[in-house]
């Protein structure tokens, strides 16, 4: 079991769930951490710092692990498959969580999503 859903400590209202085609495109995307963003692992939290805004954001361990895997350049779908095995949960559940996290991070300027053909 996962030790909790991926969350940020200052959550925005969740954005509307994308339709099927959009969700699929998102799962094929990769993630890039911009130069103005750095993150460090603490004992039970990952802190993401946006140097442009000077704001710190907290990720719980699950979300921190997702970001760590995604930064290796794998797609959201590949990251979800790897983490589903790691946490022993269904792929679909992980895909939903990781997609929501990436949309949230992108809305805060903490990651850039590289969709097929935009990289």
């Amino acid at each position, binding site marked *: 079991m996962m030790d909790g859903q991926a969350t940020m*400590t200052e959550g925005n209202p969740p954005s509307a769930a994308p339709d099927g085609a959009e969700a699929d495109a998102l799962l094929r995307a990769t993630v890039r951490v911009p130069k*103005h963003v*750095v993150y*460090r*692992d*603490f*004992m*039970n*939290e990952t*802190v993401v*710092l946006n*140097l442009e805004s*000077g704001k*710190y954001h*907290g990720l719980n361990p699950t979300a921190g692990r997702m970001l760590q895997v995604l930064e290796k350049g794998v797609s959201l779908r590949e990251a979800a498959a790897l983490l589903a095995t790691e946490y022993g949960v269904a792929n679909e559940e992980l895909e939903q969580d990781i997609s929501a996290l990436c949309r949230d991070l992108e809305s805060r300027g903490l990651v850039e999503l590289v969709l097929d053909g935009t990289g």
Partner: protein
Amino acid sequence: MARAEALVRAALPTPPVAPRGFAFGLELRAAEDREWAGAATRANGGTRSVTMLVEDPGAFRARWRGTGSRALAVRGGRPGRPMLRIEQEDSGDYRVWAPGHGRHVIANDGTLIRSSVPRPPDDRWFRLFLAQPLPLAAALHGLELFHASAVQVGEAVLGFVASSGTGKTSLAAQLVGRGATFVTDDVLALEVVDDVVVAHSGPRWLCLDEEEAHAMPPGGQGRLGPVIGKSDKLHFAPSTSAAPAPVTTVFFLYRDHDVASLEFREIDVLEPRRLFSSVFLSYLDEPRILVRTLDFCARFARLVRPIEVRVPPALGSGTLADEVLGFTARELA
């Protein structure tokens, strides 16, 4: 008349700038000797230094007005009448100003502080100097600063993080009165050396309510050093530790109406939020400093033992000091 005086002052020979001691990990170089500079030395050889220059007010003010800047922090006072204003000049240098407390410009690399002192000079400009420009110079040199008091017991430094008014200065004073060595009363300068968090003593400056000073244990007030000034509080110059020392434990103090007796609780996981809210000079937003602080906090959380202390509102600082010493001897030996 004022211009003639300024010319005379400018023509007077300036005493040579010389090393005067250490505070916040910096060697202080100034024209005047002062009792507040401790005799501490730096841990790893080499010297980080800051030169203090008191300049002619007229020329200083003209330069101040002619230089572009952006506001970083404005504190207190009524709208349009700040009690403290901190800015960053277009050049990257910082400036600190408080009405009646003088103006200070701090070089972006922390090596020079130029000050304009109100006349007649009194302790107020110097209180501001110790509270903002000097810690700022330390931060620009790479030291990390927490809003905390600290004392040294044996080889180890104990830090006390608390919001203003919680009693961290009184606690430090009471501990010094019971034999601890003074480290700092409000700003704790830290760095990681060989995977150890070490503390550098602040200036020899401790401001204490007169009533609190009289409530010290027998002989305790004498351990605070000479009284070197007075405002609404007495200004003591306690001896400081001669060398940087490892910080083993940090106590996070909270006055808590919901507790009937003092509670110590080991913090299993030190949340980043608790650390970031303890950072002094949180207005600094240069990327190099933000990243450095993030790195430092991540290491601090792994290297230092954090203890939460819930203090009943009526508990006196003397009793709190006794309990802290008891806890330290019992639990941290």
